């Protein structure tokens, strides 16, 4: 039984901000469907009274002294960007002023 449709892949790809070409959608949908069909076996396990585990360590609210440390210098941080000018990261135009 097929569950994942090409339209769903298109929507999920949009959410994930990944361009998946139209002609690839059916193949990707089939692969996801294959994996999800296997994964769905999990839904048969009774878990009504089971708490979810997001994390195995019995740790919560780990705090440390609120002491400032020197930050990464701006020029070092900006140098990592694929496109930059001075201390600024360059990106394609965001606001259309025309």
């Amino acid at each position, binding site marked *: 039984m097929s569950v994942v449709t090409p339209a769903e892949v298109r929507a999920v790809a949009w959410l994930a901000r*990944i361009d*998946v070409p139209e002609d690839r959608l059916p193949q990707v949908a089939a692969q*996801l469907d294959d994996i999800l069909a296997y994964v769905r076996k999990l839904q048969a396990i009774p878990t009504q009274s089971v708490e979810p585990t997001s994390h195995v360590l019995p740790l919560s609210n780990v705090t440390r002294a609120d002491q400032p440390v020197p930050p990464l210098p701006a020029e070092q941080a900006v140098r*990592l960007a694929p496109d930059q000018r001075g201390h600024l990261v360059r990106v394609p135009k965001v606001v259309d002023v025309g």
Partner: protein
Amino acid sequence: MPVAPAALTLHELREQIAAGALDPRALLRDLLERISRLNPSLRAYIAVDPERVLAQLEARLQHGPRGPLFGIPITVKDNLCVSGEETACGSQILSGFRPPYHATVVERLLQAGAVVIPRANMDEFAFGSSTETSAFGPTRNPWDPARVPGGSSGGSAAAVAADVAIAALGTDTGGSIRQPASFCGVVGLKPTYGRVSRYGLIAFASSLDQAGPLTKDVTDCALLLSVIAGQDARDSTSAPMPVPDYLAALSEPVKGLRVGVPALPSDGLDPQVAAALEEAQRVLERLGMRPVPVELPHIRHAVETYYIIATAEASSNLARYDGVRYGWRATALPAGPARGGGIDASSAQRGLLPMYLQTRAQGFGAEAVRRILLGTYVLSRGYYDAYYLQGMKVRTLMKRDFDAALAQCDALLLPTAPTPAFRLGEKLADPLQMYLSDIYTISANLAGVPAMSVPCGLSREGLPIGLQLIGAPFQEAMLLRVARAYEQATDWHRRRPALAAAGTAR
């Protein structure tokens, strides 16, 4: 013929260097010579810059620190940040990225006096079990170049097996240290979640990831673990637990210890692996350990649970790669209208959006895209409860299984992988088959417990087989103790691939 320095173990080298019997320069030259000779075909490293490594050694010799790894080269996987050195996580999208800081584990190696050799090859973002998804080409298995080294820490494992690394660090989210250790005939340990800092480990699944050693023997594993283990203020999930003396644990007796033998799903289990495990159990019994049957009823759901939780976390962690602040950015943008998925199509056609869409489409490989989409799907409205929430609940059941089983024994004995190394290309087109090669390793990550792989046999084709020991949280010392006793009673860890023997004796 004298044994070449690069073929020695970490603990042998440490003794020789401390005694003044070996110049660390001779060791590093021997290692770099082997790398330049073997790496072009093996591709255990994405790249090695001999000049920089030699300069690092000179600095260490002049200024120290003279710690327990003084002058010894340690290889690290391409997802552990090394300040100023390219660290790309096996991905195009991070190509050219030079982190401005060290991962804590790297810092600890340096504080111990080691020379860090970066860029062991890996599956892209650690998404894989074969190292075939690396954007920089696949690593070959030193035992048979037509086969994969396992993954995702395949570069680290192959490097140690081929004596182009003395010892290495890998990372393990679902088996990525243990399965390649098994495929390459080396020792690999995934510590308890929280035992080792994840600061500077490029995140795949934050609730599962741990860094750990891949080494030539169990003693080296204990030595390397004692260097990297311990709490770190920069990782709030690192545990405030004292680090025991792992080397001292090696010589503790194993007589009277209980080895838990779980009933396992056997579909896909190679009979040769099953036979090797039975023989390993007999060895442990001869050493005075007592077998105890235990139940892990939910382990057969490990792969399903994992591919929900790990992909959900990965899709969230990988959202940061947008081509803006670091890494790689696509410059070739399509001319036609971009798909908007119901969002305002005009905004998708210019400005930032096409840059995001194309950077991520071109920068990630097929498996990374698949996992991001899968993770986004299981987290999306309408599917969250059925997949992600249910996955987290089954994870609770799995953790309870391990708590119960480990209350009845001192360590569990399982296969590491269901088969020896498979051929390149064999599983690449069938993601689900690839995922199933981690069936025995995944549950330890979900339960957060420590687990290690130790060589325990060779198949008819001459390929290594590994056994897996799993312990209670923070009981790495127990695993090392049992593994060391097993290793002393057998000689599987001394078997070397023909490739490693080339030009050396051991």
